[in-house]
Each structure stands twice: as structure tokens, then as C-alpha cells.
């Protein structure tokens, strides 16, 4: 197990290095000199001579070989120095630190909700196959996967916010400041974020449960005269969870991707909203850092998923 974890850690590190390389070089491939872009946008530098340009270039380390520049960037990132935002005129690190908890708060809620409810719904649909529970759950999963979440958000705002007046339509409050308001504000965004992953989890759970309850050892359990509850919970559940767990990392990716859209719909000051607004203000340092943060979260999530996967299924060889 330890070798497996170490191996998997090395792999994650490798992927992380690749991702940083891709993001770094993608930003360097921008048409034009990053310095010229920077100067073009900041008033104080707009009237600079060629000599001054050289000086600035030296100051930003842009006259060094590209690999040194990359190393410098990584060195900065590791210490939490993401460079400066041109638009907000403050360090990107501080911007991200402010917004990161917001995205994590809503994202984690959506992830937990979609996983638990998805597993329960899929389980119900599988053990009551063809009955009304299945006939309700299965079509709903199709809708959940195909609905555009920004549209769902707007529908919910219209219904629960504008018509029924039950929930606040936009904004975000930290649960530490005002728990009740925070919860009320979080209901709609979290629902929208979790819908796709919930439906996908339910579908995966249903099909893998149907697969498992056909197995011989389940028939043996029935023939021993065990109760249904015991068979499902003690025998079938663990095995049917394995395929579900493998896709959880992917679902977290969806939720984080969705946060870009949902934070825009509900005006929530998280990483996703920051990224979208920064694209329009051509604040490349921020876009770059947000992408990196998303990447790190996803790599980390997949790491955890893979390790728990190994723990759940002892048949897997940690080779």
C-alpha cells in the first residue's frame, strides 16, 4: 500500500509539473511580448523609451532564458507569489486567497451532496428496478446530465427568488459571518453545481449495482436466508461503489468547471468569477493563476480518489 501511495504521489507530481509547463508556455505563446501587453495596459509605463523597456524587461526577469523564467515563476508560486494583477493592482496571491474559500465552500458542499444523494438515488433505482422509484430516478438523471446549469440557475432565480420570494437571488456570505443568510444564499448555487454530478453518480451507481446483484455471491447470500437490507448494505454496496468512486475525481472537475459559470450567474466572488472577469480585462497573471489553482485542486482530488479506491478494493495490486 505504501509503495502504491508513493508511486501515485510521484505520478501526481509529474502531472503537476506537466500542467505548470503547459500553463506557463501557453501564456508565453501569447501573440506579443508579455511586457508590451503589460505596459499597454498600465498608464504609468505607456510612454517608455526602448532603453526603459530593456530596464523593465530586466526587472521582470524577461531577459533570462525561458527555462530560468519558468523556474523563477515556479519558485514564486511555491512561495505564494503569483505575480501582480494589472486590473486590481494588487498581488494575485491575495486575490486568490480571498476568493479561494468561497469556491471551496460551495464546491465541496455540491460535491458531498451530489455524491451522497447520487449514490442513494442510484441504489434505490437499482434495487427497485422497473418500479416507480426507478421510473422517476432514471429519467431525472438524463435531465440532470443535459440541463445547461446557467439556465437552471436562471430558472431557479425566477421561480424561488423573483416569484416566490423564498431565497435571495444573488451574492455570497461566509457561513462564519451569518450562517443562516449564507445557507439561504448557497441553496440555489449548490443545487445548480451538484445537478450534473448527482445525475452521473446516480446513473453509474444504478448500473454498477445492477451488475453486482447478479453475481453468484449475492445469490449465495440470498440462499442463506439473509434479509435484503443486510445483503445490500453488507455485501453488495462496497463492490458496487468501486466504479462510482473512480469517476468521482471527474465529477469534482465538472463541479469546479461549473463554478466558473454558476459564480457568474449568482455574482459570487469566487475563483471562477475572478477568472471570467479577468479574461475580459486581459489580466493574464490572474487567468494563469486561476487555471493553476483549478489544476492543483483537480490533481489533488484525483490523488485522493485513487488512494481511496485502492483502499476500497483490495483486489487491486499496488504494483
Amino acid at each position, binding site marked *: 500500500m505504501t509503495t502504491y501511495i508513493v508511486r501515485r504521489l510521484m505520478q501526481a507530481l509529474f502531472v503537476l509539473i506537466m500542467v505548470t509547463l503547459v500553463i506557463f508556455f501557453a501564456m508565453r505563446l501569447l501573440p506579443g511580448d508579455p511586457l508590451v501587453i503589460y505596459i499597454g495596459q498600465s498608464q504609468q509605463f505607456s510612454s517608455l523609451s526602448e532603453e526603459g523597456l530593456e530596464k523593465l524587461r530586466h526587472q521582470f526577469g524577461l531577459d533570462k532564458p525561458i527555462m530560468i523564467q519558468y523556474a523563477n515563476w515556479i519558485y514564486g508560486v511555491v512561495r505564494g507569489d503569483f505575480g501582480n494583477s494589472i486590473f486590481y493592482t494588487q498581488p494575485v496571491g491575495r486575490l486568490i486567497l480571498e476568493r479561494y474559500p468561497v469556491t471551496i465552500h460551495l464546491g465541496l458542499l455540491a460535491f458531498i451532496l451530489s455524491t451522497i444523494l447520487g449514490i442513494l438515488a442510484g441504489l434505490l433505482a437499482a434495487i427497485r428496478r422497473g418500479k416507480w422509484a426507478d421510473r422517476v430516478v432514471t429519467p431525472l438523471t438524463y435531465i440532470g446530465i443535459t440541463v445547461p446549469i446557467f439556465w437552471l440557475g436562471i430558472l431557479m432565480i425566477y421561480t424561488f427568488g423573483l416569484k416566490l420570494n423564498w431565497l435571495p437571488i444573488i451574492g455570497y456570505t461566509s457561513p462564519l459571518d451569518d450562517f443562516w443568510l449564507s445557507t439561504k444564499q448557497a441553496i440555489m448555487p449548490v443545487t445548480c453545481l451538484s445537478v450534473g454530478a448527482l445525475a452521473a453518480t446516480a446513473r453509474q451507481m444504478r448500473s454498477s449495482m445492477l451488475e453486482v446483484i447478479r453475481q453468484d455471491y449475492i445469490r449465495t447470500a440470498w440462499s442463506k436466508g439473509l434479509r435484503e437490507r443486510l445483503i445490500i448494505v453488507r455485501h453488495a454496496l462496497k463492490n458496487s461503489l468501486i466504479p462510482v468512486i473512480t469517476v468521482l475525481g471527474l465529477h469534482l472537475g465538472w463541479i469546479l468547471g461549473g463554478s*466558473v459559470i454558476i459564480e457568474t450567474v449568482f455574482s459570487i466572488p469566487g475563483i471562477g468569477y475572478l477568472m471570467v472577469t479577468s479574461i475580459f480585462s486581459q489580466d493574464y497573471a490572474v487567468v494563469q493563476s486561476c487555471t493553476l489553482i483549478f489544476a492543483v485542486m483537480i490533481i489533488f482530488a484525483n490523488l485522493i480518489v485513487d488512494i481511496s479506491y485502492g483502499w476500497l478494493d483490495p483486489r487491486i495490486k499496488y504494483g
Partner: protein
Amino acid sequence: MAESDTTSKALSEAPPQVSEWRRFRRVFFQRRMVIFGLFILLILGFTAIFADWLAPYDPYKQDLNNILLQPSKAHLLGTDAIGRDTLSRLIYGTRTALTVGFLAMAISASIGVTLGIIAGYFGGITNIVIMRFTDVLMPFPMIVLALLIAALLGGGIHNVILALGIATVPVYTRVTCGMALSIRENDYIMAERAMGASHMRMIMRHVLPNAFPPIIVVITLQLGFLILSEASLSFLGIGIEPPGAAWGAMVNEGYRYLVKLPILSFAPGAAIMLVVFAFNMVGDGLRDALDPRLRGTL
């Protein structure tokens, strides 16, 4: 000569192939939802092609005397904030959605399938390098990747197509690589190799045709998600430039007038959902009809 001709003819028309096609039709058309999906796709294709004839008004023509009209006989879905007919824009939006979907799919499928075949067929270090890259891109949210690419290249519709095309390459690579790896192990491949067939011939004659069924399923399912992603990007304001009609952008424009005229936002959203739903249904139907074992893996 004549004899061998008839034998080969008899072989090529051997019963399994005929019954396979029949089995495909039986399974595919068995589910009502699949037929429903296919029906919707046909209507949409028709709408996209004949948009010029079907649209009651010019989708770009502003009419400031008739802004934000409620649905009526003259304007079935009302008009938007600068007096453009919503139904006409919806119809032209079909064209945008399908064009972006198909072009992005063409980019990602051609790159992804090529890489997947190279990785799976040649194996070894090529496989490791290509699949590692795929693993890097795979868990990345398509929308974030497309945003990054769109941020780098600028907003236009061409860049959105390119961004979505690049972002979805890994799906095809992974599926094709898996297929190529398993096909490679067959005895007939070894026999053909022994007879001195070139790699190109092997890939074209054996690997590609055998890998085709799962690829076609992935293509169908991906088309739906590409259209959904395009809608998400244009909702965020990236993609088609202002006068053009895109469903996602229409939802966003309507969002501002949600209290006064909710249909402005509701109608294009419903259209997006219908298309994605239809592609999903047809994709699922194809998967079950082509190879039931793929259920749950694609």
C-alpha cells in the same frame, strides 16, 4: 477465377453481417426515447440548413419601436431589447450551435483518433508519452480549458471552435488507444504482419474499422456536450460576436429582463437542453445497439 469470386462474394455477404445490421436496427429503434432523439436531431438539422426560409424575420434587424414585446401572433416568442424577433434568432442559433459542435468535433476526433491509434498500435514509449499527456488533460474541466485557450487566442467563434476542439481531444485518444491495444493482440494481425503488410495498411484495414463503433458513440455523445459547452462559453460572453445569434448569449441577454420578459431567457435555454438531450439519447441508443458491453464505460 470465377469460383474464387463467388466464394469471396459469399463470404462478404455471410449471414453474421446481415444479422448484425438487423440486430443493430432492432435494438436501436426499440427505445422510444432514441427515436424521439433522432426525430429532434432531424428537425434541428433541417432548421439549421433552411434557417433562411424558416425564420419569419431577419434575426439581425433591429426595430426600436418594438422592443421587449410579449409573445403575440406577429412575434411568436416576442422581441428582445433592441427589437429583434426571438424566434428568428432562435432558428439562426440552431445553425451556430450545430456548426460549432460539428467543426469542434471534427478537430478533436481527427487529432484524438490519430493520437490514440499511434499510442495503442505502436505501444511502448509512444504510448506512455501520449497517454500521459491525455491523463494531464482528461480531468481538467473542459470549460476552464476552453476559457484559458479562448483567453489566449481571443474571443471569436473560430477560437471557440478551436478551443473546444483541443479541449476534447483526450476523450477520443483514450477510447481509440484502448481499442487499438486490444485489436493489436489478435492473431489475424500477427498473421498479416507475417505476410509483410505495412503499418499503414494494418491501421487502415483492421485497427480503424474495428475501433469505429465506440468512436461513433463517443462522437455522438460529445456533440451534445460540445454544444452545451459552446452555449456556456457564449453565456459567459466568449464566442460569437454581438450581432450573431447564439443560444447561450441569448440566455444571458434575457437574464437582464427576467422580470419583464422571462421567455427571452427561457426559450433559448430550452433549445440547448433539447439538443443536448437528443444527442445523448441517440448516443446511448447507438452504444447499446453497436455493443451492449460498452454500457457504463462510455
